[in-house]
């Protein structure tokens, strides 16, 4: 069972690395930001799997903090960076 959890965590890490491609490609800031948010979600999932695989129940707390705080970055993006970008697009 442990091996299956570890293998799944490894698989999630691989999908995470693949997600890097979207951050690098873009093309709009929203694409990059969403890819980073996807990183966060994948990290939550792999933390939960690692908590089972390594038998470290406290990793669930780390996953909970991740899930809660990923929103702050998203809200900062919407309130600060995105409005600026939208205005610039509207200007052209």
């Amino acid at each position, binding site marked *: 069972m442990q*091996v299956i959890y*570890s*293998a799944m*965590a*490894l698989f999630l*890490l*691989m999908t*995470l*690395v693949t997600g*890097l491609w979207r*951050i*690098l490609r*873009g*093309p*709009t*800031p929203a694409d*990059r*930001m969403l*890819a*980073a948010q996807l*990183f*966060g979600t994948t*990290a939550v999932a*792999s*933390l939960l799997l*690692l908590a089972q695989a390594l038998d*470290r129940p*406290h*990793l669930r*707390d*780390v996953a909970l*903090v*991740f899930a809660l*705080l*990923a929103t*702050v*970055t998203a*809200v*900062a*993006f919407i*309130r*600060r*960076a995105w*409005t*600026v*970008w939208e205005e*610039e697009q509207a200007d052209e």
Partner: protein
Amino acid sequence: MILQWLFDSLLIIALLWLAWRLLGSADLFKAIVLFIAFGLVMALAWVRLDAPDVALAEAAIGAGLTGALLLSALARLNDLADTTHETHTPSGKK
């Protein structure tokens, strides 16, 4: 055992590659998003090194605070550049 090695090497490659791309990227916004992703991968590295306390601190600060700080600083920087009519490459444009 082999899984562990694969996990380690993938994590290390991801860390170094992210650092390389974020420091070399021409677009500041892209660099900041890559830095946020770097923080997330760093938290996984702390878990792997059996330091859950550090992982918690990195998760709270890397996922929440640093991203918000850098994004709002970049937005203010662009605002200031607009008001002083300086030619400045805005984020997200080629």
